[in-house]
Each structure stands twice: as structure tokens, then as C-alpha cells.
């Protein structure tokens, strides 16, 4: 998997560190890791985006894919996205299923 991207599931909370870039080159690996936790109980999926400087169409789609797979009852959070990244999500409309926060606590 790409540098700095990690997926960790504990007590039904999946924590995903997005690293610095998420695009077509590393999005498939992230998706593979997310596939592993699907089917297990996930009530919250938390994407840590403080370091994320760039997200592409393909990168956004992995997050959407994650939301689709973990089901309607689970919540998806995006933590501390940089302004540029958040703008891209809002402009393209690919943000309507996630909650944006500056911090995450259980």
C-alpha cells in the first residue's frame, strides 16, 4: 500500500489515515484494505485527512465506495480536511454523505 495510508478496525470503529495523496495510483490499494473490513461490524468509519494535500476523482470514489459498503446505519466522518480538498468535494458534490469534523472522539 502507499506510504502513510493505513486502515485499522477496532471496536466497530474503522480509522483510516489518508496520507498525503489519494489518486488512481494508490486508491486501488486503499480499496483492497477497505474490502477486508467489509462484512465485519463497522458502525463508524473515520477518515483522517489532516495530511491530505490532494485527492482526485478516483480517490473520492474510494471513500464513496466505503460508505456504500458499510451500509446506511454506519456513519462516515472526514477529519480535518484541508480547505482545498474540502472545496473539491463540495464543488463536485461528492460530499453529501459524510460528516466533516475537526476532531474525532469515540
Amino acid at each position, binding site marked *: 500500500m502507499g506510504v502513510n495510508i493505513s486502515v485499522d478496525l477496532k471496536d466497530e470503529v474503522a480509522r483510516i489515515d489518508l496520507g498525503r495523496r489519494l489518486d*488512481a495510483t494508490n486508491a486501488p490499494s486503499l480499496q483492497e484494505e477497505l474490502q477486508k473490513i467489509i462484512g465485519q461490524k463497522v458502525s463508524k468509519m473515520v477518515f483522517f485527512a489532516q495530511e491530505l494535500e490532494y485527492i482526485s*476523482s478516483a480517490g473520492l*470514489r474510494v471513500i464513496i465506495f466505503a460508505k456504500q459498503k458499510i451500509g446506511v446505519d454506519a456513519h462516515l466522518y472526514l477529519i480535518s480536511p484541508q480547505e482545498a480538498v474540502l472545496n*473539491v468535494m463540495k*464543488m*463536485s*458534490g461528492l460530499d453529501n454523505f459524510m460528516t466533516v469534523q475537526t476532531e474525532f472522539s469515540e
Partner: protein
Amino acid sequence: MFRIDLHPTHISDCGQFRLRAGKPLPFGASIVPGGINFSVYSRSATSCQLVLFNKHQPEPFGLVPFKDEFRIGNVFTMVVFDLDYENIEYGFYMDGPFAPKEGQRFDKTKLLMDPYAKAIGGRDIWGIEPNWNDQYQHRSRICLDDFDWEDDRPLEIPIEDLIIYELHVRGFTRHPSSGVKHPGTFAGLREKIPYLKELGINCVELMPIHEFDEFENSRISPITGARLMNYWGYSNVGFFAPKAGYAAAGKYGMQVDECKTLIREFHKNGIEVVLDVVFNHTAEGDERGPYISYRGIDNKTYYLLTPDGYYYNFSGCGNTLNCNNPIVRNMILDCLRYWAADFHIDGFRFDLASILGRDQNGAPMHSPPLLETLAFDPILGKCKLIAEAWDAGGLYQVGSFPAWGRWAEWNGKYRDDLRRFIKGDSGLMGAMAQRLQGSPDLYQWEGRGACASINFITAHDGFTLKDLVSYNEKHNEANGEHNNDGANDNYSWNCGWEGESDDEGINRLRLKRMKNAVTLLLVSQGTPMLLAGDEMANTQWGNNNAYCQDNDISWVDWGLLVSNKELFNFFQKMIALRKAHPVLRNRSHFQNRDYMGSGFADITWHGLKAWNADWSAQSRTLAFMLCGRHAKGGKVEDDFLYMAMNMHWQMHGFELPGLPEDQAWYVAVNTDAQPPQDIWEVGKEVKLKEQNEFLLGERSVAVLIGKKPK
């Protein structure tokens, strides 16, 4: 499930790329496991090379010939592996004969865009000066076509129930007064959806959103010094790509997602989306124009050519697309199917649609295969098909556009007759009777029904509503063509002063006449279309052809909403009135008889005397009554509706037709009354004290509702 035909089988000549034979369908560039499938057709090309660029780079990083063993028929196709599809652009070099007299103009030194490109780079941000030395100005890109539509689908609102609102994506929110976060974009337009809902319209007709070059014919205005642009966009670079410069996220290459999100939001709010599509010509111009794509790929196929190989110009823009050529026909069908299926588009309005009915020699056809194909295509089966039923080459087919019961038309006669009526011309009673009824004189003969008629008084072409009542003459000097451009037959009247005025009387009259216009439009049978901004008296200061004005002239000024609350309120309530009365929204024309046994014919005509219209040449007063039992062909029940029109310069009393004993007349609209009595909310109409006569002021209209008292 795995496939056995996904692995590379060849290496490119340069040794850099792994390849295999591709699939001809779908045309264009498609992402397949491990690579991209490229497919492009040309009837006469002898060879084709794929040219690969990193985004924005002037020089390519790869040149990959399509191997002849990969070719299927006239289609060049291959899969190229290991490409970073998000960060590359691609094009073609095509070789073939250069023999202009025979219609062949191949030039293997010209970089050609893919006609089926789903996203195009080169004008990523509106108005940023391009690098004119770049040999490849409009660059095909590969985009992800998946999208989470949730449960969205086209709304399929019956056409007779539509209230169409024509708007320009950039101009609608570009003005600083719009208050949106991303002015002039799809994202910005999304922020105005609540406004549109409040207004009450249920369909937007978007002026061209396909990729076009805003710098085409760009020049400095000799009068104002402003940069004139190709602002309206009636000039196609790419049929399958939404304009990057219309997307806030266009600079990130996400225009497709942003556009789809906009449509999904419109649908969530009960608003259909109709696209203005331009298949009559391309941005390549005539033989002096650039090679963007079609000329270099298959000139003879794509364009209508004279016997000498010159370009026929039925569009007025240099070239004419060869729409009834079988190959082009298929491309147009593919394009519309793509927008309908992948973008959930509800309908299309075809610019200069008469060109779509010309044969390969330019002659009009009785039964054009393209139009027939579109009328019967299953994917387009519930799409609205609206034709601007004329072209710039002499064809005028309002009332005679080949329709197969499916095509509707912009009714230019409605526009002209209503404008003349509103300004007080005489001799219009016969014409008005036809226009108010959905123009049976034009559309009844083939059983096309009332909603074959798209009724409008204003559109992007011509004056805004405010200017229609404020100017006698066009004022297009800012366009830099010595005021020679734009229509001369505007049928406008300035109410006594040319242009802006402080005179209260003039401004009152102008306001009243605008109310008259919208009342007549929304009470007419057929489908009404409004021009964005008319509801707030948007002005272009008399410019009736603002195609090149990317500035205050054409941008909607939202500050006007504050100063024109009365007019906005009127529009809003008038739209609600139309929606509340199905008797105004019939699919078929009136039969002029009582077929429901109510004692009243579906429509009857009146004048100052009930049951007696004055059809004489000097008459300027007219009224009609609709019987609510006949609403929607008798399928639903509605109230009686009576409309009185007094275009004379004196007040007149209209004798009211008698209603059944248990019902009474209520006034819903009276454009002569001061607000808030000019229009009443649905259900709150005021019962007339005098039930036998209605006094209507000069140059005014009134709508009465006949119903049972509560």
C-alpha cells in the same frame, strides 16, 4: 468471474507500451482492467496514431500507431495498458487523402480531438488566455463515468405541465450580486435551486453546456473596450463533454461529477433539466477554420459539402453538420443517448433544428431519417424533443417540422403575435385566438396537440422582457458590428421613452405590460417558456443579441430582485395559478363544443359583450372562457376560467358570461390594479361584487375564476 481477453498481447513499436486489440464499442476512450480501450472511426483515413500527453504539457510523451491487425472495419481500436488515466490527455494523428474537391482534407500533422471525448481539456477555467502556440488546443481526456445517482431518475413530468425556464449557466450566477460561492458554474447554479423552487418553475432549459471555445472569434469591442467572447456557446467543440469552464471543479477535471450532481439536485427538487444541443455546425468553421477534430478525422462524412468541396453554410457559422449521413446520425444518437442515460437528462432543445432535416446535399427532406430515429429511439422514448424549427439557410418550419407526434417546436409565431398584441397593434384577434389555444392552425392538422407548441415571448435571442417594453430599437453597438447584428423585427414598444426612465407613469405602464405578457403566456394552451431574469426585470440595456457579452450586459443582476419584488411576486403567483388549474394544461386542442354535458363548450369566446367576440380588424378587446369540466379532456374537474384582454387605451366594461347557479366569479388577476390586488394567491381570489360586468383598465388583462363559494 475472470475474462480471458484482458491481457496485453503486443508491444508498441517504440517498446514503451503494452497493447492488445481493442473493442470497437463503445467509441471513445473507456477504462478497462489494466488499461484504456481507444476506439475511433474514419471512413477514409489510411492510418491513425494515438498521441499521449501528460496533462497541460505541450509535447506528447507517447506516439502509438493503431496496428492494422487491430482494425475492425473502419474503426481504429486498441487497448493501451499502464496509463495513468487521471493525468493524461490523448489525441490522434490521422493520415489519408488531401483532395478538397472530393471532400477529403486529411492532414497528418494536425492533432485531432476524439469526437467521443467525454471530457475535454484546454479551457479548464473560463476566460484564462490559452497558450496560442499549443498545437493541441482542445484535448481529449478520460473521465470516470460512474456516479452515485442514489434513486434519481428522469422526472417524466408531462410536457403540458411543464413551466420551462431558459437560463445560461454562467450568466445566471456570475454577477457578484448573486451571492453564490462559485459564480458562473454548475456548483453556483446548485445554490440557486431554492430560488427556482420558490419561483415555482419545474423545468430548466440550459443554454449549451457542451464543451465550446469561449475564445472563438474573441475580439475587443471597439465601443466599450471589453473583451468579447463566444459567451452563449452555440458552437460545438465536443458533443459528449460538459464544459470544464462551467465547473468550479473544472480545474481539477471533475466537471462530469459536478454536472451530474447539479442534475441530481434539480431532480430532488422537482425540476427537470432540458439541454440546448447544437448539432447544426461545429466550431471548426469553413476551410479557413482550425482542425479541432471532425475535419481531420472524416471531413466528407461530418460536413455538408458543395460539389466543389466547399462548406455549405446553413447555420450562418461557417459549416453545417451532415446530420442525415448515416454515420453522423449514429453519432448524434449516441450523444443524446449518452446524455439521457448517463446524465439523466429529461429533454433536448435542438438549435436550428431544420438543419437536422436536410439531406446530404443540403436539400430539405420530407421524412428525415435522423429526426425519425430520434422520435422513435427507445432510450429517448420519454425525453422531450423540442425543435427551434428554422435555420439560417431559409428554412422556416414552424407548424411543419417533421414530428411523428413526438417533436415540439419553439413557436416563433406565438412570440411575434403576442408581442404585437401586447404593444397594442390591431388586426390580431384571429391570430390571438389561435395562439391562446395552443396554435391549432399550426399543430392540429397532424394531431400533434397543443403541447407541440412551446410558447414564449422572450428567449436568449432578442430582448429581455424589460427591454421589450423599454426600447423601440435594438442597441447592439457594444457588439462591435455597427448595430447590424440582431433581429430588427422585435415588435417592441418603449412606452414613450427609449431606455431607462424616471417617469413614474412610463415605469408603471412598463410594469403592467410585463405583467400582461406573463399572464398571457401562462394562461395559453401549450407549454410556456420563461427567460431567466425576466421575473426581476433584468435588462440588457437594449442589446438584443448579447451572444458575445460576458459582462453586466448579459449577467443576471440579482440586485434587481430587491427593487422588483412586485414583479417577482406576480410571476410567482401566476406560475402557481397555472399549476393550480389543469384546464390551462391540456395536451389536446379544444374541440369548441360541450362533450362533457356541462352546458358549456370547452372554450367559448367573448368580448365586451358576453358570447360575442369582436373579431374585426380594429378590435383590441377579447375574452375567452374555459369550462373546468373539460379540463384535460374531461378527465379532471377544474373551475371555470375567464380571461379578459383590453389592449385599447381606454377602460372598458366586459359583460361576464353567466355561470351555473351555484357558482360565482372571483378575480384572480387584474394587471391594472395596484398591488397586492394585482394578483391573488390561489384559493384567496376575491368574489366580485358585480357578477355581470367587469371593468378592465386600459392596456390590461384580467383572469377570473368561476367556482362555488365556500
